[in-house]
């Protein structure tokens, strides 16, 4: 067996085990199902009433931002999942087995991707209820979902490194979430980047979060509401390409770093 096929085989076994855990654990159900529903409803009604002049248009604009933020926050599952396995000695057992060194991390990121698929499905249904629509072609919509999942997968590998490096489950829990707040809010998720002050605006324009959100809005055909102009620039004009590039760069950096960390990691 080559390194890759053994990695995929063993990774799928680990993913199977993780998904059994998701199914049998109420906390995960809450995080994967109830939280997305809550986000859609809160943002759609609390924010939409106070930003912009047209609540219905703003709700439609908002959904892509919520999709991206939710799948990004799902990378915290990767962090907590790995930190838990480390603490319970399960990683020790895995590391003592003649299995691929890639498998535990691949299994974890893939199972978290499945959770994100579920979250996206639920959010989309909620979105339809609050007035969000897919206005582009079928293929564009498929591309939008694939882009969301690619982005979720890439961030999950950032989470993998955090989970392996965290000194305890408690630290992992906050470290896995805290960095997501600034990068998801300093983006085009809920507001127009054009209204931000200079340095924030520069960060937001090149922020991969902005890029994936813009790309998804373009592909779903969700227009900017009046009063929230879409600024122009290379990342906005090439949102899909820039998003794919960002995801590739994140993966190229974090997959090798996480695997290297896994090889040496000790149980806590």
């Amino acid at each position, binding site marked *: 067996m080559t390194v890759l096929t053994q990695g995929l085989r*063993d990774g799928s*076994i*680990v993913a*199977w*085990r993780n998904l*059994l*855990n998701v199914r*049998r*654990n109420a906390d995960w159900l809450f995080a994967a199902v109830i939280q997305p529903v809550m986000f859609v409803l809160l943002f759609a009604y609390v924010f939409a009433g106070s930003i912009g002049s047209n609540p219905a248009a703003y709700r439609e604009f908002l959904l892509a931002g919520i999709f991206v933020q939710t799948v990004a926050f799902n990378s915290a599952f990767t962090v907590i999942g790995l930190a838990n396995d480390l603490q*319970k*000695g*399960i990683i*020790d*057992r*895995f*590391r*003592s*087995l*003649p*299995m691929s060194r890639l*498998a535990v991390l691949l299994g974890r990121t893939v199972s978290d991707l499945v959770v994100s698929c579920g979250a996206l499905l639920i959010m989309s249904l909620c979105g339809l209820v609050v007035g969000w629509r897919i206005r582009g072609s079928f293929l564009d919509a498929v591309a939008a979902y694939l882009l969301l999942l690619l982005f979720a997968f890439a961030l999950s590998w950032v989470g993998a490194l955090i989970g392996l490096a965290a000194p305890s489950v408690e630290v992992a829990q906050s470290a896995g979430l805290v960095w997501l707040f600034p990068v998801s809010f300093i983006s085009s998720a809920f507001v127009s980047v054009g209204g931000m002050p200079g340095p924030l605006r520069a960060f937001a324009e090149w922020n991969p979060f902005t890029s994936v959100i813009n790309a998804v809005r373009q592909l779903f055909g969700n227009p900017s509401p009046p009063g929230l102009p879409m600024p122009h620039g290379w990342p906005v004009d090439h949102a899909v390409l820039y998003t794919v590039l960002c995801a590739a760069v994140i993966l190229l950096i974090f997959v090798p770093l996480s695997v290297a960390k896994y090889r040496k990691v*000790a*149980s806590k």
Partner: protein
Amino acid sequence: MTASNQVAVRAEALIKTFGNTRALDGVDLEIPTGTVLGMLGPNGAGKTTTVRILTTLLRPDSGRAWVAGHDVTAEPDKVRRAIGLSGQYAAVDENLTGYENLYMVGRLYGMNRARAGARAKELLTRFRLNEAAERPAKTYSGGMRRRLDLAGALVAEPAVVVLDEPTTGLDPRGRMETWEVIGELVADGATVLLTTQYLEEADQLADTILVIDHGKVIASGTADKLKSQIGGERLELVLAEAADLPATAKVLAEVGSAEPVVDEHTRRAHVPVDTGSKALIEALRRLDAQDIAVLDVSLHRPTLDDVFLSLTGHSAEEEKDPS
């Protein structure tokens, strides 16, 4: 292969330092095939570090080790195929059933679905977990979890089984159950490396005992050899009144071969003796003459705790200051 077929595990001059702490300071060991080596020492002595090196979880700073003929740093994957590890904390997945836990381990050893499933069932029967096979492991008792974890270490019928403190944290019943299982394993001829803080456990299960303290092997041999190393027997008394202890200590000093040890809290006093029952009778006669009431009296061969005390100056089970 450098190691002969007679030796399943060999380590030479293992050294491992964490920051300023030298966890291992030149550990040598050898486990003949089909025997059980008990590695005995207090918390922080270096037992787990040794286990982690031998199971490829950690690389030594220097020194070499072979398991089943394979160098642990040069051929870690071949070593992993030859070992089964049961760690200090039962590494079972609580949300998976007993069957699923073992099935997963079998699959990760490279077995196909049918083989992994059959092996899981076999082990569940052998470890008396049949009835709990379809229940999530979080419903198991401590002893059952340990058995499941032990079963996990045996899935691939490994040449060498490594058990790191298999009974730490278990209640007496769980400990007895676990001993029974390890006993069967040994009877089947497995080569086992067992670490423990419990002298009784090493005494019961191991062919050879290695006493380790501060990262160094300070004694090795069979339990009998270690016991005879410190010689003689122990005369131990429990008094009715703590006030009689000084007078009793004086009597024991006269009949014994060394300084008596007195524990006021438990009203206990003991002393090594060379003359066996003669010393016992003499001590009781003198105590009786002074009207000192004795609640309990015993004469026994030294326990491993006595061995540890005389080798290191401290007891094996006492909590040491982290230094």
